[in-house]
């Protein structure tokens, strides 16, 4: 040690800043990454969210945070390049970004039955291996010394021994160089460490593919609560990515099942022995659990989706997640975004002029008219634009009707947060298609007698609409027909379609004595002015009389015997009513 060295934390900060460019060069001198956030005290670091370790990354703002007080405490002052290069590796190599971070954790979760919540921890250990092995072997950085220093005060655990033995295998170190607790060594850990080392090497280039296997190897070390706690305690100082996704925005594409996750959740121990029988026994349940849900059984169930997203970002709002979930599944079934309508049959006829305001397209200025208005041009005051009227017979002049979507949310319906719900998906498809086409939507959940929940009239906000559609009541026995009176008690100025999703119980509601629901449902449709459809989860003929009575009033009764065909109805309905012809 240099006896004359300045031992203040400020001096340390300067030395680490000086090491930053060298650390970047380990990957690429030209990478664009802001200098780390240097915290001179642990207190300051805690405020930045850094607790267990002395370094961490945040994928949300592409930042590295370093706790210099802890750097001194753990005596790693001299290893700035190793530490910084390691953190940079997390940013630019693995997990690199919020999305890959989420996908990796999603894959890891498959192999962690019952301890899925440890996916972030496992991902951290895994990506550390990938990065450190690269730095040690390809860049010849001495990572061993960093581990030796950090291990000085460690409390030993089986998991820690496995990790350290794996590094010994990876770097051909003598037993005990890093795994310094001989009492924890055994043949089983050696076998696992040796498999883990080959896995880390084989998947160093495509690390995403190795996540499931890695987790499967680690799994037996995580399932006993006490061992897990000990393991986490002994590795706490190394955890620098567990919170990397915290505070990140909504990620798309996670609702769909990741087919690679299923294939990747294989235990390398069983691959090594090629024991087909044990492999069978081990995966019976994986398979049934992995059976997806929703259209073509391609999606995670909503609970697992929320767990996954929350794992990556604990602050994510559950309501927004569930909105996103149904939206993602609805997307392929929505009408295409309406393109600007071009005239086909109708002729445009000039109808006069209007003020052209700054912000209107330049080409719309009618210079002649403007000049006639005033010889001097003042944008927004003297500028004129020509307006056109449409040929009344033209099909395109039809504005899309609004739509009212009523869903039975009574005790017989399942909670769309717990299990995938076809009625909610159908409502989402219709609702979002209508919004795309420029129509407004009113959504109403009703489980009556009991409770209901509805949007404030016809709205065009996607979030508010989805929040209502994806909620859950579970009260009463059917859709409360009297809810229709809220928007349709009188003739609407702007016409609206009405869609109600319910089951047989709606007939009991119609016949209920409290109010004349038959009358309400009849006048509501008349006042709405658009088409009325009751999507009935039932068999044609079960309530023949009631069905015929509704049809006489003008309602379409659409029977579905299988809930999944509600989606077909929704897609068809959306296409018919909200798909503009070009």
């Amino acid at each position: 040690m240099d006896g004359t060295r300045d031992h203040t934390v400020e001096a340390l900060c300067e030395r680490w800043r000086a090491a930053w460019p060298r650390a970047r060069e380990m990957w690429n001198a030209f990478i664009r990454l802001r200098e780390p956030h240097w915290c001179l005290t642990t207190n300051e670091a805690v405020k930045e969210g850094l607790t267990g370790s002395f370094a961490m990354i945040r994928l949300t703002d592409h930042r590295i945070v370093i706790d210099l007080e802890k750097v001194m405490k753990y005596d790693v002052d001299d290893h700035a390049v190793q530490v910084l290069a390691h953190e940079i590796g997390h940013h630019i190599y693995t997990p690199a970004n919020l999305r890959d971070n989420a996908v990796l954790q999603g894959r890891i979760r498959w192999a962690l039955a019952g301890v899925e919540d440890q996916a972030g921890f496992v991902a951290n250990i895994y990506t550390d291996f990938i990065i450190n092995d690269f730095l040690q072997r390809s860049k010849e950085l001495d990572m061993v010394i960093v581990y030796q220093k950090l291990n000085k005060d460690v409390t030993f655990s089986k998991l820690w021994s496995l990790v350290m033995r794996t590094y010994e295998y990876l770097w051909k170190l003598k037993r005990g160089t890093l795994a310094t607790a001989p009492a924890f060594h055994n043949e089983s850990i050696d076998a696992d460490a040796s498999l883990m080392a080959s896995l880390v090497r084989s998947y160093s280039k495509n690390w995403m593919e190795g996540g499931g296997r890695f987790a499967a190897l680690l799994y037996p070390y995580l399932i006993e609560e006490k061992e897990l706690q000990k393991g986490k305690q002994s590795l706490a100082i190394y955890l620098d990515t567990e919170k990397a996704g915290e505070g990140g925005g909504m990620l798309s594409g996670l609702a769909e099942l990741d087919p690679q996750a299923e294939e990747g959740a294989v235990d390398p121990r069983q691959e090594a022995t090629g024991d087909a029988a044990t492999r069978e026994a081990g995966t019976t349940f994986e398979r049934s659990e992995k059976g997806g849900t929703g259209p073509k059984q391609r999606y995670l169930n909503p609970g697992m989706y929320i767990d996954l997203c929350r794992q990556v970002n604990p602050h994510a709002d559950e309501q927004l997640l569930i909105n996103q979930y149904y939206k993602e599944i609805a997307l392929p079934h929505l009408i295409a975004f309406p393109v600007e309508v071009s005239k086909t049959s109708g002729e445009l006829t000039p109808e006069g002029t209007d003020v052209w305001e700054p912000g209107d397209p330049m080409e719309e200025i009618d210079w002649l008219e403007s000049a006639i208005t005033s010889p001097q041009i003042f944008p927004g005051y003297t500028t004129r634009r020509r307006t056109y009227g449409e040929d009344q017979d033209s099909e395109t002049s039809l504005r899309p009707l609004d739509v009212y979507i009523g869903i039975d949310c009574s005790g017989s319906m399942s909670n769309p947060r717990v299990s995938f719900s076809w009625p909610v998906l159908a409502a989402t498809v219709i609702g979002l298609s209508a919004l795309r086409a420029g129509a407004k939507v009113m959504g109403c959940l009703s489980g009556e007698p009991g409770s209901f929940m509805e949007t404030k009239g016809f709205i065009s906000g996607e979030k508010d609409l989805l929040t209502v559609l994806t909620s859950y009541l579970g009260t009463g026995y059917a859709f409360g027909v009297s809810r229709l009176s809220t928007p349709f008690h009188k003739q609407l100025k702007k016409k609206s379609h009405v869609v109600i999703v319910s089951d047989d119980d709606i007939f009991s509601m119609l016949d209920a004595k409290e109010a004349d629901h038959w009358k309400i449902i009849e006048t509501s449709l008349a006042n709405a002015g658009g088409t009325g459809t009751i999507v009935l989860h039932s068999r044609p003929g079960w309530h023949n009389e009631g069905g015929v009575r509704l049809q006489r009033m003008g309602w379409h009764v659409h029977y579905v015997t299988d809930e999944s065909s509600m989606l077909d109805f929704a897609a068809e309905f959306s296409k018919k009513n909200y798909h503009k012809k070009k």
Partner: protein
Amino acid sequence: MKDQKEIYALIKHLRSCPQDFLEFNHQPGTKPVTEALVYDLFRKVVGNFNVSREGLPDVGKLVWQLGDEEYRAIHIGVWFFHHQLFEGNASLIKGIRAFLFERLPELTPYVKSLAWLEDEDRAEEFVREALRCCNMLIDGETEHEAQDRLDGLSSVKRQQVLEQTNESLARMKAIRQAMAEKKAREAANVYGRE
């Protein structure tokens, strides 16, 4: 340089095994090229290219009994022992023969021949197994360390450990998965439960 037994250098040498050593077609019923290769190697180790076969250990019979995987592994072994470390050291002949025709066939069920070259740990295992048969140690290593390192890498040993634990591990996993699944779905009736 000749006597330096450095693990990385030996692994590097092993992994640079030329393609020619790996590609062989031997027609059924014809004598494989292996035999000639082995005798060439023996002569090099003895340090005398004029020795007749009679003056060297007999491998003729052994060669006929082997399968393709074993052949390929032996070819890799022959390449490995061409390293200058083994040159002109007649006392090693016995160990080399034992490695090629006894130890390697024992390992073949556990390790695919190409893995000796492609997988780094298997390459190290190969080198250490070969050295052990020749009673040689890596520079700076004690016998105990060498044995420990080899035990750690040993495919046979790992296989034994895994075979002992895999079945119970698989059952444990199946139960855990069933538990996780049931928890994730709905539990059964919880009569009398909180």
